[in-house]
């Protein structure tokens, strides 16, 4: 008996609180919240990256809301999972744009998925920023509604080539790349940049994206006697190349590459072979040497989530900051064209990932960091813009 009346009481309390919740909301905020959408891999192999993207965006949204929202309205984030799958990404985007009627979208991670889902926002004329996808095609498609905060492969490659030539003064450079869109794109940019500076690479070698044995390629690289080896690849194969290069006696060659190499797994897999490896990166959580904006971001992120942010979190955070400022500039009716034009007009914006300018394609331009693997398997900033 006692049990039953207790249960009844609990149910009553729940019902009352439910009504209380309903009646409170309209009384508190008179304006409807502004809905921002995000698409990302929240499950599957890249779920970590999707999670980081949400965290970066959420931090920026919380900061806007603490400062009184935008045009007096609160910001809310609606998340959709695309599992890195282009087809699912399109459905997710359709839901955000047509069911939730979001003002703008940030996402997604995988380049192929972004290339697919950006057609939805283009059709519906909703501004979209991809924080993480790096494929150059995204911003070269002539779509005025898509912007990118990630450094495209072209910019990443420029940064590392310029560092090799200008800061290290190297002349004999070999290139290795995986024979897919990512690797070939990076290789083309590297060869072009080197030739523009009057340098012919001593070897340009390809390998299958599934390949494990790189010794045939490395022996050819060795024949060219390079000072540096630029590899356009992800960290798994980067680790294989590094290990096999050291075995083949390429011990003094500086290993270099793009952001795809940055991963704690790289050192775990290849050990000492990757110590000193250099790659370009948009962001690195180094509080001591960070710019004031970056330092503030690192501290706020650490406090909120209990971990250090990575470059993906920082780029997602910057995406939301730029979107927020654009919404402020667009005026209280949040006209889609006005928001788009305000994002496109972004100049000298001080973000966590540096001073950002959006170029005519919609790409973020900034001076990138060069980071290197340290003896204990961590990373350190080797070079940063003044």
């Amino acid at each position, binding site marked *: 008996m006692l049990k039953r009346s207790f249960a009844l009481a609990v149910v009553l309390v729940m019902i009352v609180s439910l009504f209380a919740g309903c009646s409170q909301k309209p009384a508190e905020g008179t304006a409807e919240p502004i809905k921002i959408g995000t698409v990302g891999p929240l499950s599957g*192999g890249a779920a970590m990256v999707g999670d980081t993207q949400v965290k970066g965006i959420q931090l920026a949204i919380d900061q806007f809301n603490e400062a009184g929202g935008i045009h007096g309205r609160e910001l809310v984030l609606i998340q959709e999972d695309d599992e890195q799958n282009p087809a699912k990404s399109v459905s997710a985007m359709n839901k955000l744009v047509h069911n939730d009627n979001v003002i703008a979208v940030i996402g997604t991670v995988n380049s192929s998925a972004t290339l697919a889902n950006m057609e939805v926002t283009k059709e519906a004329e909703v501004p979209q920023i991809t924080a993480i996808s790096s494929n150059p095609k995204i911003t070269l498609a002539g779509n005025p509604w898509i912007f990118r905060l990630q450094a495209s492969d072209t910019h990443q490659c420029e940064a590392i080539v310029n560092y090799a030539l200008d800061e290290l003064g190297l002349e004999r450079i070999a290139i290795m790349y995986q*024979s897919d869109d990512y690797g070939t794109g990076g290789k083309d940019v590297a060869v072009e940049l080197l030739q523009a500076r009057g340098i012919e690479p001593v070897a340009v*070698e*390809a*390998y*299958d994206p*599934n*390949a*494990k*044995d790189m*010794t*045939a*390629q490395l*022996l*050819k690289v060795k*024949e060219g006697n390079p000072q540096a080896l630029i590899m356009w690849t992800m960290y*798994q194969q980067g*680790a*294989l190349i590094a*290990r096999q290069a050291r*075995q*083949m*006696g390429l011990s003094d060659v500086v290993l270099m590459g793009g952001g795809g190499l940055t991963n704690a*797994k790289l050192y*775990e*897999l290849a*050990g000492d072979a990757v110590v000193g490896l250099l790659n370009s990166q948009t962001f690195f959580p180094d509080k001591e040497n960070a710019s004031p904006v970056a330092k503030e971001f690192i501290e706020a992120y650490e406090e909120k989530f209990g971990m250090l942010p990575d470059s993906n979190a920082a780029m997602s955070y910057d995406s939301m900051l730029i979107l927020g400022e654009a919404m402020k500039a667009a005026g209280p009716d949040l006209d889609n064209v006005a928001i788009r034009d305000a994002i496109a007009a972004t100049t000298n914006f001080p973000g966590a990932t540096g001073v950002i300018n959006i170029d005519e394609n919609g790409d973020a331009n900034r001076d990138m960091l060069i980071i290197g693997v340290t003896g204990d398997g961590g990373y350190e900033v080797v070079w940063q813009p003044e």
Partner: protein
Amino acid sequence: MFQQQLIQGLAIGSVYGLIGIGYVLIWNAWGVLNFAQGEIAMIGAFSVLMIHVWLGIPILLAFPLAILLSMAIGYFIEITSFRPLVKADNTRKLIATIGIGIFLRNLYRVIFGADPYPFPTIFGDTPFQVGKLLIIPQNIWSLAIGFGLVVLLGLFLKGTTMGKSMRATAQDREAALLMGINVKGSLSMTFILASGLGAIAGMLMAPMYFVMADMGVMMGPKGFAVAVLGGLESMTGAMIGGIVLGILESLGAAYISSAYQSAIAFFVLFIVLVFKPSGIMGSKM
């Protein structure tokens, strides 16, 4: 340069050969190519990773344990997936092996994640110099174990009752059954042996190429190619086919173009199928 490329080709080729032998064993007994052979090697690599690296059991004990574990998994796959198909036509069996391969790869990816795991060197990866040539101890071991297994398997198949019944089953299943040979047992034994072989290949690959759920994707088709090169029925042929393919890949990358390294391998396979369909060591066709 030429000789060094030759040595590297020999090393990777011996691993291809080991996977190829697995194809040959099952082809002989079952009349179907087992396209899950690359995944069997992946299972072997993960088994030794779990037993040696995660449980900390010394390598000399971990090796046989990992082989036994892989054999048990191979047996389980045989009774659950292949035995129900004994009477099915060969196309369905073939498709079943492809399905099992995809299933195993994704099962391991779900359990262990998509990232590769590092694996400690067992045989030593510090190269030593002979004249101007660099030789990595691991590569010598791959080669020795590869040919050693061919000899041992040959002895087993020709010298033991179990081996003889396996060969009899392979030659004529009906007749073997009439002679009172345990056909079911012989087929199971074949799958168990092939799984053990795959596991050894996986364990030889692990220290060089890390351990990951996708490792069979690259090794499976290469093993198939070398089995065909060798004539599908001969284990020695598969081993030699592996070495031929390994050397061709090395030299192809060095003297033709590294962008076409994989294409070269399959081009050679194509040429062999056109001009000598019975393979290098094949007798009948």
